[in-house]
């Protein structure tokens, strides 16, 4: 069986040629928009993932440094702060701090269950 070759439309008249040109332009627009839509979504999700990770890392580092440099802190407290900085940050640590009072108890309960 002979391979099928793509059929190319030949314009019959000026109006037909204009319609084909519009369709071709639409196809180009569609390809570009699709590329941006899918590419933007994937890039956005990855960028947000990195952003949240960096925010959590920065929050943990800042909290750990503040605890370690606190005046009058004992060696045990410094050690525990260092250990805390080494543990993975709570996923919604920043949100838990700013969340409403009603939601906070459940968030903390989840954190405890994860730690255990």
């Amino acid at each position, binding site marked *: 069986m002979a391979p099928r070759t793509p059929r190319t439309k030949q314009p019959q008249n000026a109006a037909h040629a204009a319609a084909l040109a*519009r*369709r071709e*332009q*639409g196809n180009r*627009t*569609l390809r570009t*928009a*699709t590329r941006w*839509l*899918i590419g933007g*979504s994937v890039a*956005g*999700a*990855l*960028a*947000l*993932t*990195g*952003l*949240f*990770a*960096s925010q*959590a*890392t920065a929050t943990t580092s800042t909290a750990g440094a503040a605890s370690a440099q606190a005046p009058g802190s004992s060696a045990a407290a410094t050690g525990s702060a260092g250990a805390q900085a080494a*543990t*993975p*940050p709570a*996923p*919604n640590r920043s*949100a838990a701090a*700013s*969340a409403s009072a009603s939601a906070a108890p*459940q968030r903390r309960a*989840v954190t405890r*269950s*994860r730690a255990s």
Partner: protein
Amino acid sequence: MFSASTPWVWYFSRGTGIVSIVLLTVSVALGIAQVTRLEARGWPRFVTSQLHKTASLTAVVFIAAHVVSVIADGYVNVRWGAAVIPFSSSYQPFWVGLGAVATDLLIALTVTSLLRQHIGARLWRTVHWTAYACWPVAFTHGLGIGTDTSLLWVRALSATCALAVVGAAAWRFTTFPATPRRPTVAAAGRR
């Protein structure tokens, strides 16, 4: 900068959740533009139609990634059943339940759209009207349980999405109160 023990899956679930609501917004807006037969120079109607399909399917993929990553991470106690059975979650049952409702509606919309040729236009259109309910339910789910809703840029993004959908819907229902029906052959013959 990042440690190996960073809970990437949790951050990924938050990222995909935000992207999903943006994609749903784009899908709804393009769907409304399609109904109103919007077109412009260099933007024929079939571009709107195809982009609406692409945005919807992309949203389905991202919502699936969001659901899978939330369950797989295990940080919140949400099981597989709770992702599709509304209000059955032990963790934040109402807000997770809204997400399950939105997921179910989206599944129905997707399946009926893929089977449109087989189920008929009437049933497809009836189910597709639930798209107007799917977006606010998903949006409310995000506002209610979203970890990052307190962030300013997330609020701005949410407000932009809400304005886009509300504005498009208002324009659609005021300018095009009902979908114009094509005249049947019999009606056309009586003229």
